[in-house]
């Protein structure tokens, strides 16, 4: 049987000591990383701690990092992990990210789990109205549209790899947002608009950086980032536009549409919008802007170079096509122009 080396990032809470330790395991084909970790735990070192339960990718207990990527240990074949091992063939194992380590591979999931409560991810049927005698009728198409998001097993792999959650405790994170999406789309729920309003606020859908890490990490078919993007569209459609995210999104798209390029000079101004607090916000950008100017990174933007005539035509065509197909939000170009001019004047 082939030997496989694992390098495990460990943490000893008694000594408050983080260290790495290597183990050799005899692996057989078909074995999972969880099997290998258990062989280490049961036969070499019983002090190794990790969570596990169902061992078939439904309970969500055993999310860890394998070669730096968040995965379910039980769902990852040793063979597959081998493909991404280091130059010496060592498979690196560590605890999930964005959360505090308790011991070895066990992290404190309180912060992650609390996001579901913050996002109020439970059905809120119409108040003061009795449910039907039998089931609510629910269109199969609508159910099929969102039901994949209900397959979340709350393992935290997406949260662990989320580039925003890593630095911002206030971000609801991909799992809670995907779950919120599932209720926004569920026609049994009465809080469609209220949810979108809340999700458009701080820590919500506009704080996602679209890095796609969550979709890659998810061991199920939840597609959290796609859910977040759909929520953005849904929020704009429902008129939840009085937020930085929407303004930024519109300014971004509008700038490209108008000039054929991202306009970095007007983007912060348009994103801040016309509202109390916009001026302080913009003033807050000043140090960064000065640094950009000094390093000559704002020059190009300041000159407002645009795309060639031909290029602009092509961009216009793309916008029209996308808008026609309703794949994008129904941004009203005229409304945008007005907003754009007003905002520029105001500042």
């Amino acid at each position, binding site marked *: 049987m082939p030997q496989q080396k694992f390098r495990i990032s460990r943490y000893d809470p008694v000594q408050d000591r983080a260290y790495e330790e290597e183990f050799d395991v005899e692996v057989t084909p078909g074995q999972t990383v969880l099997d290998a970790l258990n062989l280490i735990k*049961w036969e070499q070192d019983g002090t190794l701690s990790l*969570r596990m*339960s169902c061992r*078939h990718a439904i309970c969500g*207990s055993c999310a860890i990092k394998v070669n730096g990527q968040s995965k379910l240990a039980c769902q990852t074949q040793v063979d597959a992990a081998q493909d991404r091992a280091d130059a010496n063939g060592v498979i690196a194992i560590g605890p999930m990210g964005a959360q505090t380590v308790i011991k070895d591979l066990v992290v404190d*999931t309180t912060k992650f789990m609390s996001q579901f409560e913050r996002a109020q991810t439970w059905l809120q049927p119409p108040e003061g109205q009795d449910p039907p005698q039998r089931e609510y009728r629910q*269109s199969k198409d609508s159910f099929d549209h969102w*039901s994949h998001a209900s397959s979340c097993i709350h393992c935290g792999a997406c949260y662990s790899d989320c580039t925003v959650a890593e630095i911002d405790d206030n971000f609801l994170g991909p799992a809670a947002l995907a779950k919120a999406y599932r209720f926004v789309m*569920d026609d049994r729920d009465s809080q469609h608009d209220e949810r979108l309003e809340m999700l458009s606020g701080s820590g919500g859908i506009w704080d996602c950086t679209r890095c796609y890490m969550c979709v890659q990490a998810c061991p199920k078919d939840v597609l959290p980032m796609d859910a977040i993007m759909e929520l953005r569209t849904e929020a704009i459609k429902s008129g939840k536009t009085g937020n930085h995210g929407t303004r930024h999104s519109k300014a971004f798209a509008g700038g490209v549409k108008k000039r054929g390029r991202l306009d970095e000079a007007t983007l912060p101004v348009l994103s801040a919008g016309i509202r109390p607090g916009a001026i302080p916000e913009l003033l807050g950008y000043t140090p960064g802007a000065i640094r950009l100017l000094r390093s000559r990174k704002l020059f190009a933007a300041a000159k407002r170079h645009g795309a060639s005539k031909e290029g602009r035509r092509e961009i216009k065509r793309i916008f029209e096509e996308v808008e026609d197909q309703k794949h994008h939000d129904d941004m009203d170009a005229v409304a945008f122009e007005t907003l754009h001019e007003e905002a520029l004047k105001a500042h």
Partner: protein
Amino acid sequence: MLQHDVLIVGSGLAGMRAALEVAEDPTLDVAIVTKVHPLRSHSGAAQGGIAASLSNSTDQDSWELHMYDTVKGGDFLVDQNAAEIMSREAPENIFELEHMGCAFSRYDDGRIAQRNFGGHTEPRAVYAADRTGHALLTVLFEQLLKRGVKVYSEWYALDLVLKDDVAQGIVAYDILTGQIETISARAVMFGTGGYGRAFRVTTNAFASTGDGVVMAYRAGVPLQDMEFMQFHPTGLQGSGILLSEAARGEGAHLLNSDGKRFMEDYAAGRMELAPRDIIARAEQVEINEGRGVTEGKDCVFMDLRPIGEERIRYALPSVMHLAKDFAGIDPLVEPVPIQPTAHYSMGGIPCDINGQVRYKDQDDKPVVGFYAAGECSCVSVHGANRLGTNSLLEAVVFGRRTGRAIREQVKDLQPAHVSEADAERATTEVDRFMTADGEEKVGAIRSQLRDLLMEKCGVFRTDGLLTEAMNEIKEMQSRFENVSIDDHTKTFNTDLLDAIELGHMLEFSEVIVAGALARRESRGGHARTDHATRDDENWYKHTIAYKDEDGPRLTYSEVNMQPQYRDPYPPEERKY
């Protein structure tokens, strides 16, 4: 010392459903203690469906038919008052869960979809693709969050405290801190799950180590019908990971090495949709007689291809992914090797239709303030063999009934008190593992025990095999006295938990084998090659096992034949 009015141990479907029901009364203080976070509970692993005679598929179904199927499926050891209640209350429970937001699969007209399942004569399984347990667990947890029910997550209950047949509370171990705590409660309910982990090939989670049944047993409460372990016919080769019965419900075939649909020889009327015990035995016979497949010839094939790719992708995504991820087999292009796998514990803590734990051999004397529901309990609604989709249903129906009973009764119960002295056994046990330097290892004994039960107390049993099993368990129990662990620290010590769990497995395994050895007949999940037929004259009764100094002491109790709304179904020959 901690205190609540109501304490529920276990956070699967039964425990959460009961907690929600108790929480309906805002004056009651209810808390859940669970060794894994509620969303990690093993209820979530149930795949295929939850039974209810909604008649959404055909309009032929009725609760009577559901009840009859359940009684017959359980080889007539089912308590008929319980089967009646479960069948009658199934639809209202499903609608209630749907109103809570459960993501059930739908028909085009928006109604809940239903599919076929083994042993059910009508398409009765309500489902959420093939992750039904997960959908139900999720929705109950959402409701728990909404109501703000207190959960002691990752607390491991070690002892049930009874005084003069009255529940006082529990002794628990906080896994994060390593502290032993006492929790007093006037009503204690167990929803602690099953005991399949003691078998080598099993669908069960690492957590399914029969903790609740052992706590009850050690406190002097008997255990009922423990010898009835269900072997599921479609466990993935080797690991025994569950491939849902929904696959057969959707039309998968079972094939032997000749490529023959062998169920033709065992249950021609129902083929692959016969009850699980019958199919598991058929597979074992095929394997034993040399018609197995793969290198070890210890499997048969399940062929999903007759279902068609589109339907497999839509209705059986988990089955498809499990076969790919855990066996490297794509069921769209080739058949999957499967084998019988220990799946469901029919036995457990004896209780009535309201979850009240009772000494059924002593005129139904109650254990005041102690309740049980779900897989750890024995109502007995599954008798000698459970039908697929009836376990989620049992957990929900009886979890709800138990919660209601507690809500109504708890104010009449006396204040309870767990003292420091009550924690002595648990403290001694933990201290022993933390300091022991014996030569025996948990992993070695555990794997020996699991091999033993699989080989000598598995699908087919004999007097000789069971006697050997009993002797070996006794020997393992004494070796266990000399066990030591590596981790002697307090924070998240899973090494210690493994040792405690093995102690539980060694305790209940003895009860399983004792019951199986005594029962000289074949009924449902208990098949003896040396007593191959059912013997209603001598064995139409429940096993009741008490803990004595030398091991289990067996007595028996009657099968309930008093349904309220119709005549009972008398035992008949069980043919499909």
